[in-house]
């Protein structure tokens, strides 16, 4: 049988391109199976969300987004791991609710804690791991095991053995008191709109942050052909798809970065930049909306469903989500979705996956 080797420690990020046709999106039964939806749901903690639409449909977009739900908000709170694992917070939010939390720090350097779907993952250095007394797996560089490796400890807080009095839970609480006693800064996002009353989080005086979108309108840009080329056999050859997708992805990224290279009026000396918008591009007006904060993948999925339903099917739009960076090199995973104009359900999906 095929046996896949363990990946070497550092591999550069890979981009996977999918060109397919979506099924019909029913607002009452949000889709969860199939390619664009699983890719979106598979991300863990989303940091940035970008939406690019033609200026003409901006009104519809505004109406959709503002009508459905409140602007997504997240909270920044200072608490220790012990506070999370005990008391009302534990019984209300973790055992019954659905929350996302992530602590401050970078994964290869500091001790980082991440909580998603009731799974607590701790990325620890050698000293913290040895002081904690919890069983974990080594993480990171494989060779030279003796010198300061790092460790991952994963705990499922939703399981029935995580209650007071049981050995596993007691060891976890002991570790949180002794090894990770210091309070840390966390980002907190409630997956469901239900807030328990009284709110156990209020004791820690969280600062509530709303991520209101930043809107850039009326960008006079050159828009390339966004319809994938079809050869006579109705299936795009690999080379054509590669060329087309890389050009379009490059253009979309430049729009997201507010780069002046895509503007109609751009005249840059070729010595400084060789970029040219792909051939056959027409002038058009774009609008870019960006959110920056701490989002759950369920919110991103819901937003995309709303957009697909609301926007007329002949307009194109592009939706991309980026996660928080992991690891020492700062790689992150990203999902970019493009619906070409005048297509019914056709889409292009770019998934950037880092090695961690």
């Amino acid at each position, binding site marked *: 049988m095929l046996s896949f080797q363990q990946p070497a420690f550092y591999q550069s990020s890979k981009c996977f391109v999918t060109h397919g046709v979506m099924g019909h999106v029913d607002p009452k039964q949000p889709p969860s199976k199939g390619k664009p939806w699983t890719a979106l749901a598979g991300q863990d903690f989303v940091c940035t969300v970008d939406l690019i639409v033609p200026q003409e449909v901006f009104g519809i977009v505004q109406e959709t987004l503002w009508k459905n739900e409140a602007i997504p908000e997240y909270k920044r709170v200072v608490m220790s791991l012990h506070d999370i694992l005990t008391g009302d917070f534990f019984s209300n939010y973790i055992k019954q609710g659905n929350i996302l939390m992530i602590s401050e720090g970078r994964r290869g350097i500091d001790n980082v804690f991440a909580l998603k779907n009731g799974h607590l993952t701790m990325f620890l250095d050698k000293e913290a791991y*040895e*002081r*904690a*007394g*919890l*069983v974990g797996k080594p993480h990171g560089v494989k060779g030279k095991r003796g010198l300061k490796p790092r460790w991952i400890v994963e705990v499922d807080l939703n399981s029935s053995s995580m209650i007071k009095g049981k050995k596993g839970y007691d*060891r976890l609480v002991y570790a949180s008191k002794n090894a990770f006693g210091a309070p840390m800064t966390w980002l907190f996002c409630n997956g469901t709109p239900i807030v328990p009353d009284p709110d156990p989080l209020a004791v820690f005086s969280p600062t509530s942050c709303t991520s209101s979108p930043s809107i850039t309108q009326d960008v006079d840009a050159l828009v390339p052909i966004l319809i994938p080329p079809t050869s006579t056999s109705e299936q795009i050859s690999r080379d054509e798809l590669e060329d087309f997708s890389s050009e379009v992805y490059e253009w979309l990224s430049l729009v997201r970065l507010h780069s002046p290279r895509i503007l109609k009026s751009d005249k840059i000396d070729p010595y400084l930049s060789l970029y040219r918008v792909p051939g056959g591009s027409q002038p058009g007006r774009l609008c870019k909306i960006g959110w920056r904060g701490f989002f759950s993948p369920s919110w991103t999925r819901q937003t995309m469903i709303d957009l697909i339903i609301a926007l007329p099917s002949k307009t194109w739009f592009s939706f991309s989500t980026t996660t928080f960076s992991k690891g020492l090199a700062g790689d992150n995973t990203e999902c970019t979705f493009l619906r070409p104009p005048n297509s019914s359900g056709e889409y292009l999906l770019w998934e950037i996956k880092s090695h961690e």
Partner: protein
Amino acid sequence: MIVPTKKDHQSIAADLLNRAFESEEATKILTEKVIQRPLFLCPTSPPPADARHARQLAAKRAKEQRRTKSLKPKPLSATQRKKQGLYQIPKEGQKYKLFEPLHNLWLGYIREILGNEVYTGGEAAAAKLASADFHGAGVEVVRSGCVSRVGTKGIVVKDGKFAFEIVTVKNKVKVVPKEGTIFRVEVPVPVVTKTIEVAEEKEGEEKKQSKMVFELHGDQFQFRSADRATRKFRAHFSKTL
């Protein structure tokens, strides 16, 4: 009758040799092997080297050695020691309550050794503690390469060369190896503070309980209690920290 003349008088040996060999060689053989031949006074001593005789002598010597060796008392082997159970604490004796008075004795002993250094700590206190005896100390495993040991807390019942035997609150005797492990010891220490005169209350002295906490690095501590007393501890670079 022919009578041999003086001139022709040669020995019979020379004559015979002259018949077999040439004259030069004959004289040579005559001088070396006949005239100058060594004559032993006692030809059969020392006795000839006989293999059988030599073997008999060796066997006799070995038997003698074995006899003397078996008369010496030998130390017990590890299996024999375990069977005897000299160092095992009996089931009735594995109770935390039984060792609490020992623990109090030990606390008094430590306070006595350290004297004033209980409040200040430092190099001198460290040197004294390193050579102190730890039977009856209350320890807690705080950091270990083997993560299941972390959190073990109790009174030291046996301070061996490579491991501590600890009796826990739940009346279990646990053997905790010293390698790669850090133990925390706490010594409660009374701290006397004076309060100033407050209205109706008379001037009094408050006694608060404070603790002196120190951590033992098991890696550097792998010596028997008796050997530690005379040992000079030097700081060693630790690979695991």
